[in-house]
């Protein structure tokens, strides 16, 4: 089927449009949303199989041939991310039923949710630089609405900051695209890569380095790397748990994906400067993220700072640019999306039970919520990368790649960061779950059985992904292989 790779974009889009009409009927909305997200998941699964069998898939929209029209390209990297996105969307959707509140459900929560998935899947799939911008905007518009939905004071306040940061970064994106267009005269990503390699036969010209830095700023703002993460702890603090899980698991990863894609496809000719900067920034992100995660006593903030650590680890893997580190980066990216979604959902349950996210105000939840406690414990181990859980394999490959690339100090920092990440999440476990049962005396215990389903699914997937890593590694290494050899991508798109 020609149009297979557009289905993960088309299904949520259609669902979103239909759900706008049904905004008063909550049950109908829920059923349709679940069905559509299962459909997306199945479609994404078939795309992975298809890409694994037949190589990179591309679709020229409107039958306009590759460098002229808009092309959608699904290589293994994007197919894996689309599949992970649909799983996370499904799980967050189930979680939303009991936690988001009827008011929001009536106020177009599900349509906007679907449009967000459209944007994320589109950004992962598109093979056209300007189209990437469009899908970014679809995703951002939906995220603005999701962030402000509910309309509490803190949400309004943080939305304004988030909106402003993203408007500026979108303007920079347009500017960067304009510069690149004036240099290479095309927008198709494969075609850009081909033209750039023609221009840079004798080393990359300075203007391309400038453009590479502009892209790093634009995507770095979305992906929250070291100097550009300042907006994240505040803005991600505001929304309710399922939205936070979506944001934490997906939005920053779209930025990471875009950096990876543009740097491995366009700017790989002169890796001395650009990749050096990427490497330094990623290591600094790890350091800053760890410091934040250790310093805060707020459950949400600790996990939010852990996003920055993870972004740093993945981008470090990309910046080393050898087969092992790229494989590790792809593996760790998928792992991190899954486990961050799980952790944020768990934190959401914590906040529902205790009514606060301040770690100093509750303890001893273990007695009444053993299921929650142990799920959190496993999630924490997976996040830190304790074998055999999923974080381990990815980090191992990244560190191995780092040693092969002779950057011992940075790889050492990545290793050390695992330990401190473990400490930061264990801090939640020790203070929140152990100790005196001080919060619940005389109060009614809110039941969390239904809510617990979603994070348990995520943690189970994470464990499965880690234990059976040899099942997934062929797929992951195929993805890394495409990243390492841009020629395959170009050939598949331009059909030369």
């Amino acid at each position, binding site marked *: *089927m*020609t*149009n297979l790779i*557009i289905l993960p974009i*088309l299904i949520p*889009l*259609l669902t*979103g*449009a*239909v759900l*706008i*009409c049904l*905004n008063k009927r909550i049950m109908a909305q829920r059923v349709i949303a679940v069905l559509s997200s299962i459909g997306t998941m199945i479609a994404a699964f078939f795309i992975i199989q298809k890409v694994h069998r037949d190589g990179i898939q591309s*679709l*020229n*929209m*409107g*039958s306009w041939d590759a460098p002229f029209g808009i092309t959608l390209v699904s290589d293994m990297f994007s197919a894996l991310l689309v599949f992970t996105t649909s799983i996370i969307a499904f799980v967050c959707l189930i979680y939303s039923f009991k936690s988001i509140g009827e008011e929001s459900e009536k106020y*177009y929560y599900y349509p906007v949710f679907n449009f967000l998935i459209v944007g994320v899947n589109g950004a992962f799939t598109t093979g056209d630089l300007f189209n990437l911008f469009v899908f970014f905007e679809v995703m951002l518009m939906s995220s603005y609405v999701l962030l402000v939905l509910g309309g509490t004071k803190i949400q309004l306040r943080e939305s304004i900051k988030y909106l402003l940061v993203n408007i500026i970064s979108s303007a920079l994106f347009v500017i960067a695209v304009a510069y690149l267009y004036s240099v290479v005269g095309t927008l198709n990503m494969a075609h850009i890569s081909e033209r750039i390699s023609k221009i840079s036969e004798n080393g990359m010209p300075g203007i391309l380095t400038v453009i590479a830095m502009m892209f790093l700023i634009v995507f770095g703002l979305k992906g929250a790397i070291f100097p550009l993460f300042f907006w994240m702890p505040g803005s991600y603090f505001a929304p309710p748990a399922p939205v936070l899980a979506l944001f934490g698991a997906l939005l920053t990863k779209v930025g990471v994906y875009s950096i990876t894609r543009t740097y491995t496809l366009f700017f790989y000719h002169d890796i001395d400067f650009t990749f050096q900067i990427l490497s330094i920034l990623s290591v600094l992100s790890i350091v800053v993220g760890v410091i934040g995660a250790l310093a805060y006593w707020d459950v949400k903030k600790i996990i939010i700072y852990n996003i920055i650590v993870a972004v740093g680890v993945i981008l470090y893997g990309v910046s080393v640019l050898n087969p092992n580190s790229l494989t590790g980066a792809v593996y760790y990216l998928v792992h991190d999306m899954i486990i961050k979604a799980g952790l944020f959902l768990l934190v959401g349950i914590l906040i529902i039970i205790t009514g606060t996210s301040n770690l100093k105000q509750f303890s001893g939840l273990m007695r009444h919520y053993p299921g929650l406690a142990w799920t959190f414990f496993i999630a924490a181990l997976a996040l830190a990368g304790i074998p055999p859980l999923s974080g381990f394999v990815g980090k191992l490959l990244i560190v191995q790649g780092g040693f092969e690339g002779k950057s011992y100090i940075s790889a050492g920092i990545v290793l050390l960061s695992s330990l401190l990440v473990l400490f930061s999440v264990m801090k939640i476990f020790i203070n929140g779950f152990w100790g005196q049962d001080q919060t619940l005396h005389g109060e009614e215990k809110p039941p969390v059985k239904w809510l617990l389903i979603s994070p348990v699914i995520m943690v189970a997937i994470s464990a499965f992904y880690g234990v059976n890593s040899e099942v997934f590694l062929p797929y992951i290494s195929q993805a890394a292989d495409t990243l390492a050899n841009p020629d395959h991508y170009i050939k598949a798109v331009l059909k030369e």
Partner: protein
Amino acid sequence: MRQPNNMILETALKLLLFFIVLFSIYIFTAGHYYPGGGFIGGLMTAGAIVLLLITYDIKTVQKILPVDYRIVTAIGLLFSIGTSAGALFFNVPFLTHVFTHVEVPVLGDLALHTATIFDLGVYFVVIGVTMTIILTIGEDE
């Protein structure tokens, strides 16, 4: 609140509204081969409705045009997505359009194009989104 003495605007409106809407439809249909299209056509129609809002108040306009603009947006989206997704049934790439020339007795040679339906969707989406935004701010006093 409805202004009691708004004679000039009300009289002008009766004439202008007709022309604006008609012209917006012209712009929309002309957009196939000439400058125009669903986006500016929709904006112009929205402009006409805004003129109506300025002359009367929101309640009166809701009586004249009892539509939920969010639904209009959704219908427009469905039009556009449906036209594009129609390509799926013929196993050609998404967004592929077809067109044919038809000889119509009075109008002569007409190019019928599925992109027009897509553009009609855009037209509705633009009206819906613009009016939703304006009404959201305008609704409370």
